């Protein structure tokens, strides 16, 4: 819940509302991933992570 509040505050600050649907879809995807128990593989280039 706290995270969602912060996310909202972030969007209010940055005004990049077009990113909101992307983030929401990703969060749903994330929940699926958590339930599926898949592991996240971290590649080596640090610009991505």
């Amino acid at each position, binding site marked *: 819940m*706290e*995270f969602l509040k*912060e*996310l909202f505050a*972030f969007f209010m600050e*940055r005004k*990049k509302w077009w*990113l909101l649907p*992307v*983030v929401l879809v*990703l*969060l749903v*995807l*994330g929940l699926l*991933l*958590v339930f599926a128990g*898949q592991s*996240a*593989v*971290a*590649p*080596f*280039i*640090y*610009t*991505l*992570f």
Partner: protein
Amino acid sequence: MAQQNNFILGLSAYYHDAAAALICDGEIVAAAQEERFTRKKHDPGFPANAVRFCLGEAGLQLADVAAIAFYDKPLLKFERLLETYYAFAPRGLRSFLMSMPVWIKEKLFQKRLLWDHLEEVAGPARPGTPLLFPEHHLSHAASAFYPSPFDEAAVLTIDGVGEWATASLCHGEGTGMRILKELKFPHSVGLLYSAFTYFLGFRVNSGEYKLMGLAPYGDPDSEQVAEFERRIHEELIDVAPDGSIWLNQDYFDYATGLRMVREDRWQRLFGMPRRDHADELEMRHCNLGLAIQRVTEDIMLKMAAEAKRLTGSRNLCLAGGVALNCVGNGKLQRSGLFERVWIQPAAGDAGGALGAALAAWHLHLAGARTPCGPLDRMRGSLIGPDTTEKDTLRMIRRFSAEGERIEDFDRLCARVAEIMESGAVVGWVQGRMEWGPRALGNRSIIGDPRSPEMQRKMNVNIKYRESFRPFAPSILAEEAGEYFDLRGADSPYMLLVADVLERHRKPLPDGYGSMSVREKLYTLRSSLPAITHIDFSARVQTVHRDVNERYWRLLSAFKERTGCPAIVNTSFNVRGEPIVCTPEDAYRCFMRTDMDALVVGDYLFEKRRQPPWPEDRRWKEEFVLD
């Protein structure tokens, strides 16, 4: 105590070079990088050991801490990622699919993650304790300005990338700091340099030093270097007069790919394939290294000139990974653009932990600055874990080591000077560990710089690293001007490169510029051959009595014995290993290599007196080569 003093814990974690730092009312108490404890180079995990150490130094629990500061803004970084993928789509789909799970499962929830880790390590926090997230480049800028000796300064930070910014120009005045200008991703000086590091067969994020050390082997007068520079400017990069750059993303792959560059295009551009790390270094590799080093220096100088124009300041502070390019720093210092230049010794991301804490104190809590020390507010960067006699005795018992305790420190220094004069290599461990990537005389391997054999011996038999890599000198601060062209500047953190003065140089043979790497390496260039690089430069550390007295006394003893006020100083580790932290780490490293003697505190250990070391050479597999 906790009610009276404001302790702030700074953290950097989850990317590379995790670290923790503790300040009290703006004064630096302790700082350390996690790799020194876990023995895993560039350890990116949560810095549990470093946090434990920092809080332990002040006898604190998490509940005693007034605020915690993390060195960047995760949500802003996530925004950059999403926008970058969108801008490059459909390119980058594979990397998108790989990176998103990491973010969705962990990195987006970093605040919770940090609290969980912190409370696991140091108990519950006081309710309402703020967890702050200053921007990445603001953390770097704070780490550069607030510990500096200046009341007012221009602050330049240059690195790979933070959230969006890849370089920033700030103005620091008293306790305030204003960001004046930023360069944004994907246009990045740090990533440009890393791209060449990758193309020349070195590891991104750690091989940049090697590229800098390789560059002087290039032939500065050759047509090839000029041609490489021309192609870099024509195809890869546009440099504006203010030092901001634009990188042609047709040639790079770091924005959305899993490699730094598009190798086929680079091969066509430079007429050579990407060098494999095991391939022999050829002249063309050196020349390409020299070309990108020159381009980088040009950008650094232009950025500094812009900083001067915008702030009018006489002082400059530097931080960010590119500020570890001490060749560029040396040129900047000698350019005369600024009267004084100060560089954060932990200029890379580890230093962000300290910067975040300082930013929280000065910018969030409006705290005052502390009085300046002899040189600055960094306490010589000797703010890491201490070495106590108890630790040394435990090490002696564990390894049945044969040590001789010499209580009279002057006598110990005289003995070590005698050992070094005989051509031997000595491990030297004293007091608190250094903060930052350079060993400054408390976790160092030292030797006689006058020996023509020393560079090869240290590289091949002690450090197990490439023979082309140069070594740096520590010199008594009061004698530095007699040997190096420092123009009155101090270099206590080994972050400036200066030329060896003409009178100490040896004449070079004809055709030196076009000689092979190996031929150049074995040419005697000065009266201090072990620390004189191919182009007569040296990465100098000036040693000041009021900053590190024991190390100063050792150098004085060496001077008294030999007349030479300088010694070779390299970090106490082997290739791929983090710098040793404890006496046990030091003894292990000492016994695994051809080091001749080890000093820990007041104890001298000579190799010939030690019991046989049971380990075989397979220990080298313990460390991933950098």
